[in-house]
């Protein structure tokens, strides 16, 4: 019997798992995907927001600012990507300035202390490439950028190190409420590495952090009091040589009809523009399209007109898990012991650590005992990244493990050693995209053209997976379909 079962391993589930792992609790953590962070978490702007935008008095406003502060503490132990580069909300006229003034006031109420209304010259001094017609801006130094999946992975690794039992590829298909516990049935569909997971789990409490599918999970216990409406946002990601065009996160002043398009460097210093907003019917609909992205480009040009469209590396889309209630839904439901953490749209990435605290408060109020573990490990070792290491450190590392000297991904300078390392970390992974998220192999300008054959080989050697089961991500996304020659087939 588990004390708690967390459903969903996005950023919210990861933050909750990480926080709960401090205490003497027996925790099971279920994720339907092949890795943590593979839903909304993997495809968003990666912004750690300042907290000025959400309307004062909402849960979003309260948790966003607190989340921003917590990340800045957590990063010292967990070493995830975080760079507080600051943000501008840019304006072009008095009308915009009035909106910025309102944002400023809202921000002050939300407890954001470092806000400043600045003029065009101030903006140009920090951001020489932006539209010269900018007349004013709200400047927010405490805005940061992260790499959202690397962030979630860091939290998840820490949670697992501290005893949380993560089960990937495990979709929850039924939940029965018993007197003092839940019977949870999962459908386990591993890609390659089979773990001996029991199909049925008993847990005293359930935390539903299933993101886009939070309403589907809630329905399993008969709850129909909210709906998640996927809202798609599309992005264009540019080569790193376009990254230096901006130094900060640049938002446009929101208007009644549009929130504007964001222009920002990513944590790894690519240029990112997007997202738009489009309600879609299907939660898994992540297709990009030319007409929406043309609008994204047009709108982004109002901020920055000099990006080179030939330098686009990829387009992608993410679906926001917007609920029909407008604000975050974080509450114990009508079913005793079943906690919903749903409708976590923007600024959910920022708020996640504060959401975790808030959930713990709910559990504490229910009388759950929180006794700290004596052997809790607060620290999590960061990954080695050859691209970021100095000569001496690199030399020492290669001497110890020569594979760190063999570059597999040329564009991002990722070594074989880093891939070996990713395969040995706490989250058990076996797909291309999972390796990519951790090491950045395949993230660069050639988009995995050169490293695909090498990574296939490494997965084959390390995990002894049959070649035709090695997948990009989910089942069915195998990279190659088999061998060219019959004589090779027995080699499985």
């Amino acid at each position, binding site marked *: 019997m588990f004390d708690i079962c967390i459903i969903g391993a996005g950023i919210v589930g990861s933050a909750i798992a990480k926080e709960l792992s401090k205490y003497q609790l027996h925790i099971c953590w279920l994720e339907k995907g092949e890795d943590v962070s593979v839903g909304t978490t993997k495809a968003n702007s990666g912004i750690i927001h300042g907290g000025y935008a959400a309307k004062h008095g909402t849960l979003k406003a309260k948790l966003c600012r607190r989340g921003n502060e917590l990340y800045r503490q957590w990063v010292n132990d967990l070493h995830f990507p975080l760079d507080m580069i600051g943000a501008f909300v840019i304006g072009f006229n008095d009308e915009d300035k009035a909106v910025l003034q309102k944002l400023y006031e809202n921000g002050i109420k939300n407890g954001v202390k470092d806000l400043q209304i600045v003029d065009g010259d101030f903006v140009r001094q920090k951001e020489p490439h932006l539209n010269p017609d900018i007349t004013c801006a709200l400047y927010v130094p405490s805005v940061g950028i992260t790499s959202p999946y690397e962030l979630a992975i860091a939290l998840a690794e820490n949670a697992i190190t501290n005893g949380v039992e993560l089960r990937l590829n495990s979709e929850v298909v039924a939940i029965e409420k018993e007197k003092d516990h839940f019977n949870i049935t999962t459908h386990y569909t591993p890609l390659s590495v089979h773990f001996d997971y029991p199909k049925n789990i008993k847990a005293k409490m359930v935390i539903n952090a299933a993101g886009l599918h939070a309403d589907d999970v809630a329905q399993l216990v008969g709850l129909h009091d909210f709906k998640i409406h996927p809202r798609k946002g599309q992005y264009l990601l540019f080569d790193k040589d376009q990254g230096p065009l901006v130094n900060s996160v640049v938002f446009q002043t929101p208007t009644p009809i549009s929130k504007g398009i964001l222009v920002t460097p990513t944590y790894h210093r690519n240029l990112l523009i997007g997202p738009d907003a489009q309600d879609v019917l299907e939660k898994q609909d992540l297709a990009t399209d030319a007409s929406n992205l043309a609008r994204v480009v047009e709108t982004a040009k109002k901020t920055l007109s000099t990006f080179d469209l030939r330098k686009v590396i990829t387009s992608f889309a993410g679906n926001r898990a917007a609920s029909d209630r407008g604000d975050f839904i974080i509450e114990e439901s009508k079913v005793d012991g079943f906690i919903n953490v749903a409708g976590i749209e923007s600024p959910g990435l920022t708020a996640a650590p504060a959401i975790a605290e808030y959930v713990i408060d709910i559990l504490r109020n229910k009388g759950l005992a929180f006794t700290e573990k004596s052997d809790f490990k607060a620290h999590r070792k960061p990954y080695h990244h050859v691209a970021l290491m100095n000569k001496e450190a690199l030399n020492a590392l290669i001497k110890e493990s020569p594979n760190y000297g063999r570059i597999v991904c040329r564009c991002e300078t990722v070594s074989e050693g880093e891939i070996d390392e990713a395969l040995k970390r706490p989250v058990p992974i076996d797909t291309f995209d999972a390796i990519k998220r951790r090491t950045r192999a395949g993230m660069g300008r050639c988009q995995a053209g050169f490293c695909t054959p090498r990574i296939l080989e490494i997965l084959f050697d390390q995990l002894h997976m049959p070649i035709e089961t090695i997948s990009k991500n989910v089942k069915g996304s195998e990279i190659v379909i088999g061998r*060219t*020659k*019959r*004589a*090779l087939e027995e*080699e499985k």
Partner: protein
Amino acid sequence: MDTKKLICICCPIGCELQVNKTENGVEVTGNKCPRGKKYALSEIEAPKRYVTSTVKIEGWMYPVISVKTKEPIPKENIFEVMNVLSDVTIKAPVHVGEIVVKNILNLGVDIIATRNTD
């Protein structure tokens, strides 16, 4: 008169050839070199192609090694040759020009390696 248009494949230039069949025989025009004429004639009579492929190899850093037909073979035999190569396994070391399959399908043409293993 029977006219056929061909693109010469003997070299990267790709001359556009015209083959005219008249009572006096076959006439080729458009070729920049004698090989073009030869190609046009054989293409009309019995088209032949080199086949390049790979075969399984043991004891080397890669699982397959590249091979080719030493001479062009009749076009209609290409897939049969591929079928034979699918089951072939050789052992390293191998050198360019070494025979991998002798006289494949009795076509009078050997399959030879096109790469060195060392």
